[in-house]
């Protein structure tokens, strides 16, 4: 649940984006700049959070009136060394923000923090990560909350898709790449597992809304509509005039324990009544055009 500290939307003074060079960070930067919000975009080139002195360097860049978006992560954090590195990065941010003091912090987290058996997922669902990646985000949320006095909003996106996604995980992005190369779109088994997929531009729009209302609390970024991988594959094939086949391939492992995941997005409807998620079919077309 979010609580808006600004009763009406107001343009933040300046937004410092930590991790602005990434897939999500870049989208947030573009969105804010389109809205005329001043940004300080920090990529790994300007600020490597794993380097000694990173906290001090970041603190020197911050002003008390800044809003900060922390989106930098080495993801997915599948191994213990990656988990530790991600926590080291968060430690630097905690050190900088605790010392410098800022007006507002938005942390881009993940729905991986929730227990696998939570269905439908809401912001009140139990956080009990089953993966190192989920534990990394859950730990970072706690680190930030315990170190920083400023109001903090946790934005927890579900599976994000978009043209610039550098990952090639099972789902819309991989399907598009397969189709673009003229290869069949490969789904595991009958592809009946249903998931919620959110367009990266929608995640950026939500981050901008949270900044404008100076919200604190937690919000999931999910559309409320779960779609099977089978249907996504066929939506993608349609974009290629159905010249591309959808092919069932054996699952790489046992059928996942989490067969389906649904989200109840009532809290988003309440927090931002006028916000509209992009429907998956429409989002896939938009992502395809930009790719």
């Amino acid at each position, binding site marked *: 649940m979010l609580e808006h500290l600004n009763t009406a939307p107001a343009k933040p003074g300046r937004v410092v984006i930590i991790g602005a060079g990434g897939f999500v960070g870049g989208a947030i930067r573009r969105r804010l700049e389109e809205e005329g919000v001043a940004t300080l975009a920090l990529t790994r080139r300007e600020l490597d959070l794993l380097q000694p002195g990173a906290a001090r360097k970041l603190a020197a860049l911050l002003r008390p009136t800044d809003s900060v978006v922390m989106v930098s992560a080495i993801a997915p954090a599948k191994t213990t060394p990656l988990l530790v590195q991600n926590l080291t990065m968060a430690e630097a941010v905690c050190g900088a923000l605790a010392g410098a003091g800022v007006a507002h912090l938005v942390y881009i987290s993940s729905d991986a923090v929730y227990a696998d058996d939570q269905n439908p997922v809401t912001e*009140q669902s139990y956080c009990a990560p089953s993966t190192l990646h989920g534990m990394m985000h859950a730990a970072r949320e706690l680190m930030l909350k315990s170190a920083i006095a400023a109001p903090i909003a946790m934005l927890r996106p579900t599976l994000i898709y978009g043209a610039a996604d550098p990952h090639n995980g099972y789902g819309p992005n991989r399907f598009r790449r397969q189709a673009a190369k003229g290869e069949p779109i490969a789904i595991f088994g009958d592809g009946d597992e249903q998931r919620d997929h959110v367009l990266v531009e929608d995640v950026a729009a939500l981050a901008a809304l949270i900044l404008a209302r100076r919200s604190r609390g937690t919000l999931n970024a999910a559309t409320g509509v779960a779609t099977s991988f089978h249907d996504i594959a066929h939506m993608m094939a349609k974009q290629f005039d159905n010249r591309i086949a959808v092919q069932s391939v054996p699952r790489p492992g046992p059928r996942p324990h989490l067969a389906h995941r649904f989200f109840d997005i009532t809290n988003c*409807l*309440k927090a931002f*009544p006028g916000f*509209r998620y992009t429907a998956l079919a429409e989002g896939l077309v938009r992502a395809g055009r930009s790719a």
Partner: protein
Amino acid sequence: MTAPVIGFAGMTHLGINSAAAAAAHGYPTVWFDPDRTLVGRLESGEFPVVEPGLMELAKVHRERISFTSDAMALRRCAVVYIACDVPTDERGDSDLSSVRRLIDTVSAGLARDAVLVVLCQVPPGFTRALDWPVAQRYYQVETLVFGRAVERALHPERFIVGCADPAIPLPGPYRGFLEAFGCPVLPMRYESAELAKIAINCCLVASVTVANTLAGLSEHIGADWNEIVPALCLDRRIGHHAYLAPGLGLAGGNLERDMATVLRLAGETGAETGLIRAFMANSRHRRDWALRTLHRELLTANPDSVVAVLGLAYKENTDSTRNSPSLALIRHLKPWRLRIHDPVVPARAADHPRAVACASPLEAAAQADALVVMTPWPEYKGLAPAELARAMRGRIIVDPYRVLDTGAVAAAGFSYFTLGVSPSRAARKAPHA
């Protein structure tokens, strides 16, 4: 023999209905409230609560009713009930300070042998801790149901009485008064009676939660919960009076209060109460059913929508808006224009910047894109969907309680959304009402 005088302190929904029932059973009654203005209004026949039959009952038995704001007037009472409201905070926790204040006020004026009965909802342990002789101190479970308060007060199923020692007979005047109602009297220790009230509400909440959970599932799998309910009611283990009608979560505040009390007691004692948390989570989810439906069908796509909202009260036949699902919905419809009607509650209760108060449901429907029936008032049952279709701009009806004639709604070309059945089925074919 002259009937003893029965006093009621706290002219609340509970106090007024209980006092009227006592007068109707032939007992002289004293209706006390420290609020002089309220007592003046009652004396002039202006009652602050709406209940079918209440005004008539009080009028018929007027000669046995004495109104007062002077606590000393309770001195002639053999039994005095404490019947004030117990406010709750947003978590459902009770603020008992008003009960304690009223008891202090009342006890100063009571006769030495008067029996004090706590009738309002208090947590286990409250009555035993009171400073009044145990032989004259009791707790009695109230079973008020808004909209049916008179019927329930006149003809209770039983009286549950909390005592210091249930083996000791109740004092004569109190026992005689209870026996006049012709129902079983169940004495038990204070804590048992206080928990019995909570237990009753937990059972009701369990039924409501089962209904809401499976009604929600029905909406997804093509079943119709309304077809299932009669089958359950005919099962002797469930029964005809079970709370199986799907609704918009728990409303009214009293059920939530008891859930909060159980959770608090569990927190203090280590008892396992995961079930109660599940009840609360389901209630929160179902409360927003209409909001989700409106967004999915209309609001997200059409920012200029006009929504007609029929009903503000938390249920029919009452003017109470406490925890009203309608007001909860309206609170989250700030960007949209609303047209509002309720037969009793004034539109200002909605506190919405773009709401228009309407004198009739048809006026509210004028040029609306969607119509939502949030309180199942009897007068809404008579609305003709064909007339609604002529008045409205859009063709969406959200009717959680299935108030309207579903066949006529479908014939008038509306998309129809109700609890317990999938919307496509309701739109194509009228379900059996």
